[in-house]
C-alpha cells in the first residue's frame, strides 16, 4: 500500500504564500489527521497532492509518483474535496457511472458503493435536491469507486448527522485496518482524537507539529487543549 509523501511543498497565489516548505508523510495502515485553522493551507495542500493545484515548489508523491503520473488514478487514490460539487441536474447513479466510464472501472462498482454509503435509495434522484449530508455521502461513494489503497478526505464529516459521523469513523478505521492510507482533514477535534493515529498540524502554510496522537497530546487534557496550545505558540 502506497504512502503519501509531501516534501518541501509550497504554493504562492500572487503575493500570498498559502503553503511554505511543508513536509510530511501519511503512512499505510494509519489514519493521518490533518489539522489547522481556516486559511492554514490544508485544502491547497490536499489539492496539490491531487494534482489540481500546481505547487510553486517541492513535490507531493503517492507511492513515489505524482498524481498526474499515476497509471490508474481512481483505483489508486480516492478523494473527497471540501464542499464536493455535483451537477444539480444529474442523478447520483449517472455521476458514478460517468466516473466509472471515464476511469475504466467496472460499472458493477456503482451499486456496491451506493449501498456502502447508504445512498442506494436515492440513486436515481437528481443531486440538486440532495442535502449536504447526502452530497457528502455521494462524494464518499465516488472516492471508494475504484476501491483505492489511498484515501484523501477534506472535511468528509461536514454535514453528516451524529449517526453519519459514527458510521464514517467506523468506515475509516476499517479501511486503515485493511492497510490503506487515509489522510483526513477536519475541524472536529473530538472526532479526530478518536479516528486518527497520526496528526499533522499546520498554520499559516507551515508545519506546527507532527506525530502520533498520543505523542502530541502527551500529558495534556485532550486534543482540543493540545491544538489550542500548539497554535498559541505560533502567534
Amino acid at each position: 500500500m502506497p504512502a503519501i509523501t509531501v516534501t518541501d511543498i509550497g504554493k504562492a497565489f500572487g503575493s500570498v504564500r498559502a503553503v511554505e516548505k511543508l513536509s510530511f508523510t501519511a503512512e499505510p495502515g494509519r489514519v493521518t489527521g490533518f489539522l489547522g485553522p481556516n486559511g492554514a493551507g490544508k485544502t491547497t495542500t490536499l489539492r496539490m497532492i491531487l494534482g489540481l493545484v500546481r505547487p510553486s515548489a517541492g513535490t507531493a508523491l503517492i507511492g513515489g509518483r505524482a498524481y498526474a503520473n499515476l497509471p490508474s488514478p481512481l483505483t489508486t487514490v480516492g478523494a473527497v474535496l471540501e464542499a464536493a460539487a455535483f451537477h444539480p441536474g444529474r442523478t447520483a447513479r449517472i455521476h458514478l457511472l460517468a466516473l466509472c466510464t471515464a476511469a475504466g472501472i467496472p460499472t458493477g462498482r456503482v451499486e456496491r458503493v451506493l449501498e456502502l454509503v447508504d445512498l442506494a435509495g436515492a440513486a436515481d434522484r437528481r443531486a440538486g435536491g440532495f442535502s449536504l449530508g447526502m452530497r457528502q455521502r455521494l462524494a464518499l461513494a465516488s472516492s471508494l469507486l475504484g476501491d483505492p489503497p489511498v484515501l484523501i478526505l477534506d472535511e468528509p464529516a461536514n454535514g453528516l448527522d451524529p449517526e453519519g459521523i459514527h458510521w464514517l469513523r467506523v468506515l475509516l478505521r476499517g479501511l486503515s485496518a485493511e492497510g490503506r492510507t487515509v489522510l483526513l482533514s477536519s475541524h472536529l477535534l473530538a472526532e479526530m482524537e478518536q479516528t486518527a493515529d497520526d496528526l499533522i498540524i499546520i498554520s499559516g502554510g507551515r508545519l506546527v507539529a507532527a506525530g502520533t496522537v498520543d505523542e502530541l497530546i502527551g500529558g495534556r487534557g485532550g486534543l482540543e487543549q493540545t491544538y489550542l496550545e500548539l497554535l498559541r505558540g505560533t502567534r
Partner: protein
Amino acid sequence: MIGLVRAELLKARATRSVWGLAATGVAFAVAWAVVDVLVLMPLSGGSGPADGKIRDAYSMAQQGYLLALILGIVVMAGEYRHKTITWAFLATPRRGAVITAKLVACGVIGLALGVASALLTGIVVAVLLTAAGRPAGAPGIPFVLAGSVLSTALWGVFGAALGALIRNQVAAITVAFLWFFYAEWFLVMLAPAVGRWVPTGVAKSVSGWSRDGMVGFDGQPVPGALLPVWAGGLVFLGYALAAAFAARVVSVRRDVT
C-alpha cells in the same frame, strides 16, 4: 479516449438542458425553413434562379447552429460552473485528454442536432413546396443538407472550445452573442471583403448557403461573398481546431481551486 468521450456523452444525455437546447436548435431550423418557403420565397417573386432558392430553403437546416454553439459552451463551461471539472480531472489527470474528449463529444452532439435538423427541415421543405405546387427538388440538395450537418457539428466543437477558454458560462455566452451578432456584422460593414473569412461566413459556405447574407456599407450584397464549400469547410475546421488547441493549452495550466 473512447471511454472519456463515452463518459461525456453519458453525462450530456442525462442532462435536461442539453435536450432542451438541442430541441430548440432543431425547432429553429424548421421554423426558418417554414418562414423561408412561406414568406421569403413568395416575396422574392419570380426573379433569380429557382434551383438556388430551393437549395436555400433546404439550407435552413443549418439554422440550429446558434444552439449548437450554446450547447458546446454549456457542456464545457457548465463543468466549471458546477465545479464538476474537479471529478473529471481526478479521474483523468491528463487534462488535455479530458478537454479533447469534451470537444469530440460536443462535435457528436452537434452532429446529432445537425442530423435531426436536416431530416426534419428536409421533410418540411419538401412537403411545403409540393403542397404549393412547386418543384421540391434541385441539384445539390444532399450536399446542402450534409453541409448543414457538418457546420452544426463544428459549431458544437467551437462552442466547447469557447467554454473552456472563458470558463464563466454567462460570460462565454455573452461574448459569443456580442461577437456573432454585433462585432462580426460591424467588421463586415467596415471591410466587406472580410465577410467570407469570419466564422459565420465560413460556416454559411459549408452549409451550402448561396444567399449571401452579408451586406456592405452601400446596402448592397457583397459580391461573391462566400468561399467555396470545401474552402469554407477547411477554414471553419481550422477555426475550431485553433480554438480547441488554445482551450487545451489554457486548461492544462490553470489551477483548479
